[in-house]
């Protein structure tokens, strides 16, 4: 187990002149769940979008498995095993469920076992099996989130980044998503999760970072952060 599976050093990201993330450093350990919490506009989504290559870093270094990936295009990152399940799901509305899943395996590392992965997805998400030929755009929010997760899994990731996976979902479905995240960890996938449900996220996470206005203000084990009075007051309303 290498301690620097994903290592971010002094990362800054800006939209035009406005910094959304400033001098942020963090470590994601292999086989663990790392959580990133903070209020809206703290820079969490910016961070994940930068990790997946949708935004360009202004300064800093992103290393994945000891290779510098700071300026790698998105598809190369997926090929290296870094996959994002984005906020808002971004499934393809005009594709069927099956096409959505298949396109999730478009990268070289996953293309070979597309049939196995597909079968596996349907086993984990029987709902998707039932809706195989339905268009992605006609699914409910919860089903779309399942599809986005399953599509992320189709890429055979080593590190899965989840951006607000339970946003806007009914409690019962949120439960299922959290269970799924734990299951993913158990089968050996490293998780980096950004979530507005701070309490539940910290309960399943191993390590956590707290972001505020684009700056990291606290880091530690999830348990430490969970019991920190300031965090409890600011993010959990306790």
């Amino acid at each position, binding site marked *: 187990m290498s301690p620097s599976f994903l290592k971010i050093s002094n990362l800054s990201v800006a939209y035009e002149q406005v910094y959304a993330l400033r001098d942020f450093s963090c470590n994601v350990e292999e086989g663990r769940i790392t959580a990133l919490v903070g209020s809206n506009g703290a820079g969490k989504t910016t961070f994940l979008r930068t990790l997946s290559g949708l935004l360009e870093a202004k300064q800093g270094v992103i290393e994945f498995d000891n290779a510098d990936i700071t300026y790698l295009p998105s*598809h190369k990152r997926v090929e290296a095993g870094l996959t994002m399940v984005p906020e808002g799901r971004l*499934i*393809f*509305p005009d*594709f069927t469920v099956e*096409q959505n899943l298949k396109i999730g395996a478009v990268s070289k590392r996953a*293309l070979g076992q597309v049939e196995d992965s597909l079968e596996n997805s349907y086993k984990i998400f029987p709902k998707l099996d039932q809706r195989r030929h339905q268009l992605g755009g006609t699914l409910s929010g919860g089903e779309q989130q399942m599809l986005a997760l399953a599509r992320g899994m189709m890429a055979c990731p080593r590190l899965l980044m989840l951006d607000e996976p339970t946003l806007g979902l009914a409690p019962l479905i949120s439960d299922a998503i959290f269970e799924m995240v734990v299951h993913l960890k158990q089968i050996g996938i490293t998780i980096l999760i950004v979530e507005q449900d701070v309490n539940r996220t910290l309960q399943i996470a191993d390590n956590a970072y707290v972001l505020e206005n684009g700056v990291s203000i606290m880091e530690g084990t999830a348990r430490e952060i969970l019991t920190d009075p300031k965090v409890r007051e600011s993010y959990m309303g306790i």
Partner: protein
Amino acid sequence: MDSLLSPQLLAAAMITGVLYALISLGLNLVYGTMRLLNVAHGDLVMIGAYVAFIAFSLLNIGPLVSMFGAALICGFLGWLSYKCVFQRLLSNGQLLSRLEENSLLLFFALSVIIQNLAILFFSADRRGYEYLSAIVEIGDVRLTGARLTVLIVGAVISAAVVFFLRFSLFGLAMNALIQNRDASAIVGINVDRVQMSSLIFGFGITGLAGALISMMEPISPVMGFPYTMSAFVIIILGGLGNLWGGFLAGLLLGVLEVYGVALTGPEWRSVLVYGIFVLILIFRPQGLLGSGKTAR
């Protein structure tokens, strides 16, 4: 009325429809994947037509061979414009957001340049060549061999293109890019390569269609503009970026145009095409098939 039911007219409508479908598919690919408003699209038809004309009159190569040359040359132009201009613009978030408007101006300028270069080199005269001009009779239908060939070759190539886009992984990736750029990047699609291929492919099939057209009609440096207009009408009719919708709309506009002209007269052609355009924009801006982007 009898003439309207004649298979003769139906054949004419199918020829126009197949060519429209191919040409508009090229435009739709370029618009769909990159939001580039290529108002020089019809000029690719003209370039393809001149390639076939030159190949035939100077090198004695038939259009059925030179149409692939036309596709290659237009595809090369697609590659060139991607490498010189669009690759940089598309990779920059700020420029990307203004690309749609900017591309309109850029392509308009290109169109003027291309047409004037063509006039410079080939003069503004209409030209043509004789190829398979003997009449072929199939049942009640009488066609020149050239028109029959265009129909068959056009249909085969259209089918091949549709099949490729529908069932290949590459077609799936193109379709994904048309639906959502960010989502395509994060699932691992090489967006840069798909964009480049769409330009090459879109330009290429349009050039090929131009070579086919040169077999049946006189060509001139300004022949492209009506095709640009028709292609835009078609992709809006089918829903912008909706490849299948556009393809069907191409066939449909071919039928509407040929039957409309048969009912009224050739002088009404433009009125018909633009009339349909205006009606769609008023009543169904999202296109006949619904999904796809709304025309603005």
